[in-house]
């Protein structure tokens, strides 16, 4: 027994060691390292599910808040069929259910299988297999739910366009959120399959439109079953955009632009012996007091609803998305481009008010003198043989600044261009040796207008630095030359502007020199329809360096254009005494491969301008033939004037 008791002590010590080991380990796990494990336990059981917020709508100014108002962009619900894979498989009826669904939805079983095997979703999330399911089918599934274990019909929301293509460029579209958007977004703002604005206002105002996701937090067990809710927060619907756009004016702009383009295509271009291509055009109506855009049409356009279900092959071909070799038949040229602000053009003679003012400002011209208007202008002492032609084949009577605008003489502008050249040549290293560019920039040219839409182009004003650069060696083998100035003076040559820049600059002539930032959104409204989340101000603080008298002088001159000048014919019969129109025609030579760009930029009513109306049609000939009648048609709509005149006229005048 002695030995036994000694051995029992040994035994007891062994036991103590074992219990010591257990206690030590428990101390480590439960006291020292408990934080780590507590977090892991929490991660185990708690799941967060985001609840999508309803995307904000887009409304035109005149429709918003009206009892029967129609939004430009709204949400529409889609009946979506989703499958809870776990539940379906546990039922043991997967085969039969899928076969029946395939028949009802008219989708091959193989495709349904593909959808439910998709790894885009977590296993505990039901996976979508069909959208826009007919009411009848959805009802059948809900009615016999026990025969469709794990199959659910859910209401989801997608974009809808009750006004069809109206304002399609402005509205833009939504699509699956892009990687770079995910990168920029804060955590939890988007799920990998969320929709986000990809163009137009949908993109520009994405953060207002998308609202704030709700969150549902709940506890799942080890099988992924939902055990209990831990609350969360409700989603906040996105704000509604209320535009400055008037839906009727927008409609008139789009319709008259389209009509004008189709009619122009039936007109023979006598210089070439072919019909005018008239492949694109723009109409802009701008409120000169605020910079708010009342209408902005760009053609060719598209139907934003195509993007809701994904583009078909034909739609991709139409949209000219770079598959020309695979697309049979005709396509339009880049219909997605909003030519009003995303594309640049030579403005032609519509540019003259700005260059004329520059010539006066720099002392090359004054308002009382007369300047020759020969058919052909040659730069002094130029022996290269470069002839600068007026639009008219014959020498015209000398012109004042005003009549040069009314009858659109080019030759005096050429001469002022030469003056600008000499200013440069005589002071090449001077501080301000290129005042023309400086004066034009004051009108906002060569910089974005700051419109609240994405992808705006800046335009371009050529100068000595550009002309002397190596890249331009082909164009200017001996460096910058007088032609650069001479052509810029008549809105031709190497410069470019967007139609919107031109409209904004005319707006500054119209409102005594204030350059307003153009915008299409007036305000963002909370979904309650009462709270203004954001007011989009135009900001008209910037002014141009000309006196009211000078601007009035220009405007008065332009008021004569439809009366007795280049736009006389297209405005025949228009009640100019009631609604005086100040405007300027423009016909821009785009190069040998293209037909001329037709322009008309106007202010209305001319005595106290409220609006600037600008029209531009590519490859359409004279400004007075196509763009001026188009503007007339637009103004008729705006002022409720009985339509008169022709859709296009044939004046043969700039």
């Amino acid at each position, binding site marked *: *027994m002695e*030995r*036994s*008791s000694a*051995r*029992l002590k*040994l*035994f*007891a010590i*062994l*036991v103590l060691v*074992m*219990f010591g*080991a*257990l*206690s030590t*380990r*428990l*101390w480590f*796990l*439960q*006291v020292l*390292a*408990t934080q*780590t*494990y*507590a977090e*892991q*336990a*929490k991660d*185990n*059981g708690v799941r967060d599910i985001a609840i999508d917020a309803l995307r904000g709508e887009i409304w035109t100014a005149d429709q918003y808040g009206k009892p029967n108002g129609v939004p430009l962009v709204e949400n529409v619900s889609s009946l979506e069929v989703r499958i809870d894979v776990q539940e379906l498989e546990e039922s043991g009826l997967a085969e039969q259910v899928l076969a029946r669904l395939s028949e009802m939805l008219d989708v091959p079983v193989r495709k349904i299988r593909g959808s439910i095997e998709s790894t885009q979703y977590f296993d505990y999330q039901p996976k979508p297999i069909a959208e826009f399911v007919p009411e009848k089918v959805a009802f059948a599934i809900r009615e016999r739910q026990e025969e469709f274990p794990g199959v659910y019909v859910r209401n989801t929301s997608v974009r809808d366009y009750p006004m069809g293509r109206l304002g399609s460029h402005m509205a833009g579209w939504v699509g699956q959120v892009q990687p770079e958007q995910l990168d920029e977004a804060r955590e939890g703002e988007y799920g990998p399959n969320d929709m986000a604005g990809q163009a137009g206002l949908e993109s520009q105002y994405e953060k207002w439109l998308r609202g704030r996701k709700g969150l549902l937090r709940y*506890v*799942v*067990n*080890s*099988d992924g*079953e939902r*055990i209990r809710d831990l609350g969360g927060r409700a989603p906040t619907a996105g704000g509604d955009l209320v535009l400055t756009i008037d839906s009727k004016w927008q409609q008139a702009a789009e319709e008259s632009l389209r009509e004008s383009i189709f009619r122009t295509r039936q007109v023979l271009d006598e210089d070439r012996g072919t019909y005018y291509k008239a492949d694109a055009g723009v109409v802009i109506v701008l409120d000169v007091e605020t910079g708010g855009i009342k209408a902005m049409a760009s053609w060719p356009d598209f139907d934003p609803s195509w993007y809701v279900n994904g583009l078909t092959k034909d739609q991709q071909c139409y949209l000219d998305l770079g598959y020309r070799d695979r697309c049979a038949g005709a396509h339009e040229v880049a219909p997605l481009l909003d030519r009003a602000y995303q594309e640049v053009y030579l403005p032609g003679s519509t540019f003259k008010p700005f260059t004329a003012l520059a010539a006066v400002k720099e002392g090359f011209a004054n308002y009382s003198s007369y300047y020759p208007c020969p058919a052909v202008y040659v730069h002094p002492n130029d022996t290269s043989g470069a002839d600068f032609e007026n639009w008219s084949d014959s020498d015209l009577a000398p012109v004042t600044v005003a009549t040069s605008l009314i009858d659109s003489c080019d030759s005096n502008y050429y001469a002022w261009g030469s003056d600008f050249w000499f200013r440069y040549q005589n002071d090449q290293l001077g501080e301000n040796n290129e005042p023309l560019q400086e004066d034009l920039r004051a009108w906002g040219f060569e910089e974005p207008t700051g419109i609240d839409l994405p992808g705006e182009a800046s335009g371009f004003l050529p100068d000595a630095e550009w002309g002397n650069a190596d890249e331009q060696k082909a164009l200017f083998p001996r460096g910058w030359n007088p032609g650069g100035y001479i052509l810029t003076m008549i809105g031709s040559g190497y410069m470019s502007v967007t139609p919107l820049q031109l409209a904004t600059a005319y707006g500054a002539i119209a409102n005594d020199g204030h350059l307003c930032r153009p915008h299409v959104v007036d305000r963002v409204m909370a979904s309650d329809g009462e709270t203004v989340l954001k007011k989009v101000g135009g900001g008209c603080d910037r002014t141009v360096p000309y006196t009211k008298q000078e601007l009035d002088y220009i405007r008065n001159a332009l008021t004569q254009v439809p009366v007795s000048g280049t736009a006389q014919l297209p405005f025949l019969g228009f009640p100019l005494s009631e609604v005086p129109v100040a405007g300027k025609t423009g016909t821009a030579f785009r190069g040998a491969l293209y037909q001329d760009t037709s322009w008309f930029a106007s202010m209305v009513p001319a005595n106290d301008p409220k609006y600037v109306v600008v029209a531009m049609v590519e490859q359409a000939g004279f400004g007075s033939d196509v763009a001026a009648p188009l503007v007339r048609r637009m103004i008729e709509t705006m002022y409720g004037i009985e339509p008169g005149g022709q859709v296009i006229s044939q004046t043969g005048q700039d």
Partner: protein
Amino acid sequence: MDVVAGRSWTTERRPIRHLDPALLIVTAALIVIGLFAIYSATSQTLRQDNLDPLSRVNKQVVTAVLGIVLLLVMATFDYRFLKVYAGLIYGATVAGLLVLQIPGVAATETGTSNYIDIPGISLLQISPSEFAKIGLIVILAAMLSELRSPMPMAADLVRVIGVAVVTMLLVFINVEIGTTIVLAAIAVGVLVVAGTHAKHLISLAVGATVLIALAFQLNVVEDYQIERLLTVFDSGSVSADARYNLDQSVIAVGSGGMFGAGFLQGSQTNLDYVPEQHTDFIFTVIGEEFGFLGSAFVLALFALLIWRAIRIAYMSKDSFGTYLATGVASMFTIQIFVNIGMVIGIMPITGIPLPFLSYGGTAMLVNFAAIGVLLNVHMRRFK
């Protein structure tokens, strides 16, 4: 008067007056804690399946009642009768284990066939290997208490170990590694206390190691068992499945912290993240819901239990009683250490239940029987 023993006692030495109240209280406390833990581990799942959330607890209570009956039976007769019938008991044990090898007898509900369904008694399935623990304790105690020499000679050891190994092998071929380990521990415990020479113990250890290595080499051990065993040593090389058990149980215990999440509040427990939680992993409930304090309290109860067993071994009037109590102490110790060690990630996963806390039939009955044996030795400690 203790008629069974065929002798009379003075009043103050009547066995009934010498129960070990501490042992009984500890056992009762463990059972009660176990019921709460089982409720916590099972009620949620049962409720989800529209079953009575108390059904597991109720079944455990019934088993405990049966266990108490068994305890009383084991405590009533003089333990020395066990020595008399030791050979018979051992024979019955081996026979029971052999029955499992007869096709068609063993119930196969759990995949491995280590239960015998007793017709008419659906509540209990009898697992012969569990009873083999008691059988081995009794036969070893009987053999070692009858030695001529004060310490076992090599020949004695060969006989004793032969007896133990036969039992272990029969259990082992039923793929019950856990029980095999317990049997080995019982043998080692009893041999140590019986005064086996150190050099013999060492050569025994070497021999066992060689045998185990051989077992692995000959693929006697199932792959999943090897994997589970490896989990604790090399967490990188095992499958996610095997890791999962360990990870989840360690997370459960660790997340309990000092004070625990509170009864029924443990997320790991409630949400069913710990597999086999009401049986082998019952300690995770204690760890998660009652924290370190709860775990330490349960450990202390177990320590108390072992201490009482060792004390009874020490106080026994004969070496048979000492070895019986030692065998029981070994049995409990190894089960507690391996089970809790497994739950907290310092021992491999072997499928050993935690005495009195784990849900389960036969093992529980055997534990009660073992307590009965301890009480028996304690009550009759006077010569």
